[in-house]
């Protein structure tokens, strides 16, 4: 009996192997994805934001300001345009993200305690970039105005200690938890690779039923009266094993070689991934049972798999989505997986909290497999 099961599994493996497109996708897809995303995020985080300073005053006071900007964390002054127009052009062309304009007569106005303005421009068209730039700029502006204020107070006859006291700001220490260096590699690369992996898996899973019932050899199986449950059970087993075999090298490279954070340890992560692989496979199987042919089934699968990462809230948070959408996104196994993945790799909040994520994947798998069975039975009746 087990011999027969093994035979079905071996046949399925052959089938996947000989389907050249599928073979290429499954063998190279996730790994290539991981390497590509690693390469893209090679820089890890946004430092050295290109900055330009237009110093229209060229005095010692204005140079002081320039120096402060040069020393600011994450800002890197790359050019000193001679006019505002030149700066404008550079920002429009995207060469510069932050522009600083120190007005003419700056030193004179400061000396005379006249109101004077330093203009700081941030190109916000790339918000991720701009958020970083803005944070860096906020740090500098605080010191610049405070120092100017203290000088003014001192010139008004206040003694230096008192003047400093007045400006004695509350000192803050910032800590980014779970990813203290704000590293984009930690945040995005593996998640992107997993996103790619789940797309590849969807392609394979979405021919589970139709790949069998949609071809003429199905007649043989029907004529023999072979148990459909047994056939698909063994097929699915192989699929899920293949899915896991695809992701393990990715995990080894990511966690082992590139030392991406893994707070929960390898075992729970692997188990969680296994449950997701099963849930994903169940979803693909459902598509494949309802579709008319392998092509349609693949397309259905992709209609879910492609936007699912955006919907999962891994990047743009679910809390920021409109209220009516929030419950909807939790229908997809991808949402549970990517949310759970974030908790497991960065935070490891403990079993009590994570249990619901594991159970959700199991429930999704059960529901989808049951529906797929019902639909297949109806189609074949």
């Amino acid at each position, binding site marked *: 009996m087990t011999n027969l099961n093994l035979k079905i599994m071996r046949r399925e493996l052959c089938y996947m192997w000989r389907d050249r497109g599928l073979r290429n996708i499954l063998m190279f897809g996730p790994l290539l994805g991981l390497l590509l995303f690693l390469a893209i995020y090679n820089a890890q985080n946004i430092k050295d934001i290109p900055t330009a300073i237009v110093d229209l005053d060229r005095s010692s006071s204005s140079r002081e300001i320039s120096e402060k900007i040069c020393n600011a964390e994450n800002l890197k002054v790359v050019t000193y345009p001679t006019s505002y127009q030149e700066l404008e052009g550079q920002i429009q062309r995207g060469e510069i993200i932050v522009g600083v304009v120190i007005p003419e007569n700056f030193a004179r106005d400061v000396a005379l*305690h006249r109101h*004077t303005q330093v203009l700081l421009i941030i190109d916000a068209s790339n918000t*991720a970039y*701009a958020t970083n730039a803005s944070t860096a700029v906020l740090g500098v502006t605080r010191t*610049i105005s405070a120092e100017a204020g203290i000088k003014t107070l001192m010139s008004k006859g206040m003694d230096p200690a008192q003047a400093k006291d007045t400006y004695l700001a509350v000192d803050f220490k910032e*800590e980014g938890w779970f990813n203290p260096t704000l590293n984009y590699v930690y945040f995005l690369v593996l998640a992107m690779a997993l996103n790619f992996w789940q797309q590849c898996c969807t392609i394979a899973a979405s021919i589970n039923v139709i790949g069998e019932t949609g*071809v003429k050899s199905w007649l043989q199986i029907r004529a023999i009266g072979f148990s459909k449950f047994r056939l698909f059970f063994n097929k699915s087993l192989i699929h899920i094993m293949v899915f896991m075999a695809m992701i393990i090298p990715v995990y080894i490279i990511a966690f082992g070689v590139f030392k991406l954070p893994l707070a929960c340890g390898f075992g729970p992560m692997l188990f969680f991934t296994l449950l997701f692989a099963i849930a994903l496979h169940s979803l693909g199987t459902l598509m494949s049972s309802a579709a008319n*042919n392998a092509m349609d089934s693949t397309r259905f699968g992709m209609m879910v798999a492609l936007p699912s990462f955006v919907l999962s809230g891994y990047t*743009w948070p679910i809390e920021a989505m409109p209220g009516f959408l929030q419950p909807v996104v939790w229908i997809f196994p991808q949402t549970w997986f990517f949310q759970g993945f974030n908790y497991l790799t960065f935070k490891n*909040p403990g079993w009590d909290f994570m249990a619901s994520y594991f159970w959700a994947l199991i429930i999704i798998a059960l529901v989808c497999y049951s529906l797929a069975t019902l639909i297949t039975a109806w189609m074949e009746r």
Partner: protein
Amino acid sequence: MKQLWNIAHYEFLHVLKDPILILIVFIAPLFYASLFGVVYFSAILHDVPLAIVDQDHSALSREIRLAFANDDSFKIIAGIDSYEEMEIGMKNGTLRAGIVIPQDFEQSLYQNHPTQVLAVYDASNLIWGLNSRKFIREVINDFSTQHTAVRLASAGYSPQEIENIMNSVECNVTAWNNPTYSYTNYLFMGLMMMAVHQLGLFGVCLCVTREKERKSWIQYLAASIPTWKIALGKSLPYLIMNFFNYSLILWVSSRFVQVKIEGSVALLIILGLLYVITVTFAGFIISLYSSNSLQATRYLMLLSLPLFMISGYTWPKAYIPEILNYIGVLFPSTWMMLGIRMVSINTAGLQLLWPTLLVLGIFAVLAGYFALNFKKERNQPNKSSLSLNGGVSYPRKTNMLRALRQQIRASKL
């Protein structure tokens, strides 16, 4: 002309008869525009769940709490009074940021003992992380300014004097192009251009493979009709629909999703036309040379993510290794995504956009050339590959129902 029209007409009829194709050509673009539009509708993060662990209970610490409470960016989660509670909240996602004010904070501050408020934020999701960090700094800056103003006032300065002192060097920070730091402006159009790309390809990429699989391609080959008429006729419905969808997406984006779409309309139209022509003809070429529609679709689908990432649309090009940037420029999607941002968000004019237009134009001409000038004779079929094609060879219930319906309809007429 009549031949061309006829081919286009029947291809269009085919689209109308295939429910999935209807979905892809007519519904999916609008669906994805609405879906992503809804996802990114709020555009900026606000109400970041924040805990304030006040171990000082002084006037100053209450002032700090008030500063955070008054800011829209944060929502203070009540009932978190210890560092440990905050830690748990940060771990299970109920908190995304926290402020810890140490004991004897006020006292230490005024006695010039070194003391610090701790500001933590969740960096496991960098959208939360980077925004929280920025918001915290903004609140702190405001707080410090106000604090200083209060102190100056108590030292007997008049409001006018205070303003003069504090603004002796005013740092005026302005954000250009996207002043609210909206994520919708930032991401939405890029995602949509990818959707136009992928849906455009999916629609057209079966128009020849389908005929090949059903053997009717031979009717085109055996007729004396020139190739450009076949290519143009078959692509025409998709060209029109893709351009229509492109315009529709722009309209939906600006009208309902409130994405900033400014800049020259003419430039947007030209960009869209070139892009749609390139995509449609590229899809036709894929359709022409792929022997198996399923395989072609699979590879195409997997393209979306790498194409999006490599374009430099989200992660700045300057941070991507040179070699990947060189690969990136080979894809029209890279040019289009960056191009549409330049026009719609940065309101760039022709003098900045001409390289993009030129490159997209070259893509369009190349794609058009290879689509319209294909070789009509077939190559010898490749028999070695196992083909699992899009057709269904074993009758299924739904297929039989459809056939039955058609028969009934035919007999009625």
